[in-house]
């Protein structure tokens, strides 16, 4: 005996949504609260600290070198040791010891900009994939869905190099409130991107068999996965200006 689950492809009369869509929106609501807490923490910590303490850490916390210019890293380390030994790091910044570096995230802005373009493009390909299914073009769907996954991998690779750059210059989560929140929020976002790759990969691979047996339900699944992916990208749309552009 089999039980038929209602409202998989037809909207529920009470909510006007299908089961899957209702579920994903409830999940996304909880995600808004999760990320919202970190955005609030950012505002609270930034308002409660001087800029130098917030961005570079408390006086006495030693930062290995200037993240502004790789080629001058050694020279800057020497400056920091000779001229500002045991002194406030903020003072070094104020006296030009960092050659105009206003934030440890400043060197990452080009990479973050590139990643923003990548994620916006991936949201476009998600919608194109969904539209391809509405037009019953499964081959085109596979192409766009595959490109979306490729974009997600590109994002992760760029993020890897961004993190490596930070670590190479002695910038760690413990260095300052700004860097603590930067690593926390961006890594949480990275986890969501990885989750998206897993789900989207399943729908491109084994999950795509459903297209032959129940195309309407499969299209519904793609729409739900697309909603999640849009949310992940929308979070980045907020993270990018707040963490990078406004951090100076």
């Amino acid at each position, binding site marked *: 005996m089999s039980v038929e689950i209602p409202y998989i492809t037809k909207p529920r009369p009470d909510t006007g949504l299908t089961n899957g869509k209702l579920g994903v929106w409830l999940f996304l609501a909880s995600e808004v609260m999760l990320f919202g807490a970190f955005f609030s923490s950012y505002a609270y910590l930034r308002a409660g600290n001087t800029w130098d303490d917030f961005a570079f850490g408390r006086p006495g916390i030693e930062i290995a070198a200037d993240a502004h210019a790789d080629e001058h890293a050694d020279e800057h380390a020497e400056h920091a040791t000779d001229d500002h030994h045991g002194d406030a790091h903020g003072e070094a910044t104020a006296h030009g010891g960092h050659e105009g570096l206003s934030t440890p995230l400043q060197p990452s802005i080009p990479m973050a*900009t590139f990643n923003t373009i990548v994620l916006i493009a991936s949201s476009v390909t998600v919608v194109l994939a969904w539209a391809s299914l509405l037009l019953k073009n499964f081959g085109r769907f596979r192409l766009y869905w595959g490109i979306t996954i490729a974009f997600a991998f590109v994002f992760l690779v760029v993020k890897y190099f961004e993190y490596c750059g930070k670590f190479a210059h002695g910038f760690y989560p413990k260095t300052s409130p700004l860097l603590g929140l930067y690593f926390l929020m961006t890594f949480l976002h990275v986890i969501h991107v990885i989750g998206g790759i897993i789900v989207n990969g399943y729908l491109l691979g084994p999950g795509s068999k459903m297209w032959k047996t129940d195309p309407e339900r499969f299209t519904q699944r793609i729409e739900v996965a697309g909603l999640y992916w849009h949310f992940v990208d929308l979070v980045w749309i907020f993270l990018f200006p707040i963490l990078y552009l406004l951090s100076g």
Partner: protein
Amino acid sequence: MSLKGFHVVFVTASALLALGFGVWCFTSPLASSAGYRVAGAVAMLAAIGLVIYGFAFYRKISEIQR
């Protein structure tokens, strides 16, 4: 909200970000190099492009769903 609606919201947010980034490139002391001026101009054009894309997308997907 359907994916169609959410995509429109997303494109709107992206266009606003592109516009904001363009302004930032021309005004922020962090964006001091000449490359940022070019990036700012490109971002402004991208903002216009995203608005055009948003309208085109909405029209096209509404046709498909009919």
